């Protein structure tokens, strides 16, 4: 029985925490809260050197993980990135890397995966037309065309597409769901940065209008992408849960500290029992979220038989707990929490965006209910 990070994973977290404290602390977000891009490419490249994009890629493409459970390594990293609300494309980079590592041919891995792992090229992931998680919401069609396919349609909530060097696009071909690689810039691809509640990250609407894709930029045979899409969704959800748990952890620390420091009625507000009990409840939710995220990562890493249930559990619980914790933390902070200059609202905004992206809680809950129904026989 070991349900904790091992020594190497702890070391990875420490290294990453130090790196981020120096290169991308919370304060580094401030200048870019209202600009069109929040990605510092130098930090990203150096992060890639620290393994941010390497865990799910094979050694021959410059990848490599810390443990035998690369997805666990990944959420160890994700927690650290979440603590500072790191804005960059950690999630899509790893989803794309995993997809290329598992489904790309040798040339694709060499040409697309390796530069991604090295942090030289930024990948964006075009999943669905409205940001919901069902494959039925894919809104890019792939029409057979001379030497490959022609893409038309759109994807929304594409993380950092405006800064990307290439796109991995989920599209619907006559043969079925298909994954295509599109280098940028490309004729017919339009990118618009969405104006979002989350001020730390940038998501985009990407439009495709007669975009030509050659056959060697398709992953596998046209129509064969369904299993990959399912895997991508699970992976995204788990990585997001890891980032969310990190953010919860950090915000909770800030809130406990505030409760110890802030004096009202001649006492630290943290000495009032109502505040104590709320903080106790938030801690319980934090630990619950952490356990859910860790178990989901473990289940995916080891391909446990209940991995789908584990992902849906984290997908539903972590989102709601993170949102709850952020709202309550703001309340406990009182007036200062309501100011732009305090960081609490950045956590709240992040949590509200996380709540609805990559499958909202009701979507994950519905999925969990279906799996449960299949498990429960009549008595």
């Amino acid at each position, binding site marked *: 029985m070991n349900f904790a990070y091992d020594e190497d994973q702890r070391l990875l977290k420490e290294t990453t925490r130090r790196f981020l404290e120096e290169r991308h602390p919370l304060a580094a977000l401030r200048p870019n809260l209202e600009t069109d891009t929040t990605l510092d490419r130098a930090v990203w490249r150096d992060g890639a050197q620290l393994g941010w994009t390497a865990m799910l890629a094979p050694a021959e493409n410059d990848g490599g993980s810390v443990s035998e459970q690369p997805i666990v390594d990944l959420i160890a990293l994700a927690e650290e990135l979440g603590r500072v609300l790191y804005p960059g494309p950690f999630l899509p980079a790893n989803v794309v890397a995993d997809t290329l590592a598992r489904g790309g041919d040798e040339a694709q891995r060499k040409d697309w995966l390796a530069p991604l792992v090295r942090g030289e090229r930024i990948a964006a992931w075009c999943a669905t037309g409205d940001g919901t998680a069902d494959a039925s919401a894919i809104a890019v069609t792939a029409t057979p065309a001379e030497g490959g396919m022609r893409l038309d349609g759109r994807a929304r909530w594409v993380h950092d597409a405006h800064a990307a060097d290439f796109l991995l696009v989920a599209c619907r071909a006559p043969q079925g769901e298909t994954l295509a690689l599109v280098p940028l810039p490309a004729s017919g691809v339009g990118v618009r940065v969405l104006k979002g509640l989350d001020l730390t990250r940038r998501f985009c609407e990407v439009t495709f209008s007669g975009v030509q894709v050659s056959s060697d930029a398709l992953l596998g045979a046209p129509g064969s992408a369904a299993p990959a899409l399912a895997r991508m969704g699970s992976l995204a959800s788990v990585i997001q849960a890891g980032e969310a748990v990190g953010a919860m952890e950090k915000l909770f620390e800030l809130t406990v500290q505030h409760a110890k420091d802030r004096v009202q009625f*001649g006492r630290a507000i943290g000495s009032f029992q109502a*505040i104590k009990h709320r903080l106790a409840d938030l801690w319980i939710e934090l630990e619950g979220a952490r356990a859910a995220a860790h178990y989901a990562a473990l289940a995916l890493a080891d391909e446990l038989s209940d991995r789908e249930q584990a992902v849906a559990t984290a997908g539903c619980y972590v989102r709601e707990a993170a949102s709850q914790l952020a709202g309550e933390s703001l309340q406990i902070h009182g007036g200062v929490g309501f100011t732009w200059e305090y960081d609490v609202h950045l956590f709240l905004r992040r949590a509200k965006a996380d709540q609805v992206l990559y499958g909202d809680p009701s979507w994950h809950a519905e999925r969990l209910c279906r799996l449960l129904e299949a498990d429960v026989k009549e008595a």
Partner: protein
Amino acid sequence: MDVRVPEVPASYDDYRRRVREFVEAHKPALRMKEKAGLRVPDDPEDVSKLRAWVRALNDAGFASPAHSETKLDPHQTRILNEELGKAGVPVVLGNPLVGGAIKLFGTEQQKAFYLPRIASGEHIWTQLFSEPAAGSDLASLQTRGRLDGDAYVVDGQKVWSTWAQFSDYGYLLARTEEKAGPAGITAFILDMKSPGVTTRPLREITGTTDFNEVFLDEVRIPVENVIGQPGQGWAVTTASLAQERGGVGSRGAEDSIAGLVRIARATKRAGRPAIEDGAVRQTIARFAARSRIQRALGYRVATKAAAKELGPADAPLTKIWFSELNLQINEYALSLQGPNGALAEGDPLAWQDGKFQDAFLYARAWTIAGGSNEIMRNLIAERGLGLPREARG
């Protein structure tokens, strides 16, 4: 029991028509968007237009009796409120709560000078109560005033003052006697143009600037600007604060709930309109029930007020009910929109240009300000239910 509002007789149709024509003719064209809560323009030109509007309203005899000497009968008052509300135009600018304080505790000179100028829009007022270290715990305020001849010299820092950046006068609380707690606090009328007054607009989590910090550095306030007696400030303010807490939300949240229904019609969930989803229906219905009860609680408070039976727990009840329902509805509006719930004002895809996102963020002003809901619960428990008081410091 009877809570029906009597029909307005047909004889008032002409009055309503005149109000409506006046609004049509004088309604200011503002750059600021209509948003939830007590919001303040960014643009000084908007302020000028609003001042002109309030003056014109007052000159035309359409000012609300709450803030002026106008004599209106209940039907006229109702018509006025309905028409101005529908048009989204204010009847008074700034924070008018000082009016009640002056009416109850002010000198005849103060009444004669300030009250008509509040009504006419000539004077905008701000409230200088909260301090960085005295939020919910107003009695611990640290702004000091010492008597120096015919004036008090005041030093300190205030925060959460709406409209201060555009205000002519401030309704100020400062400690003038070295006593702990509520004793020794004095209420002042502060001329915001006095030397030593610095106003710094405070940006909130909404991204807008609806509040201010106000720094007071050796500010001289003439003794005749005390409201009531020195040291009586706590009594002066208690009435106005209770009014602020009790006044919110007595309408119910029908508009927001109608918004939820519309979002649920327009959004798909599992391939079908969200309004067909049982979980969505149950949630919206519970909000609707609580909104309807909010209105009934308003009847309760009005009835108790008329019978002079209001207790110390009644305003806190209304404030908690309204502010938490308001927060939850707006929060649900976001999750109901799916991914688009994470959009914000300025994005063409955002539902009603991000109205619910703004309202969700602003909702914390109601749960924190005016005495946080934690303080409200203490009031209910200790003063309403008679539970033993908490040790305080």
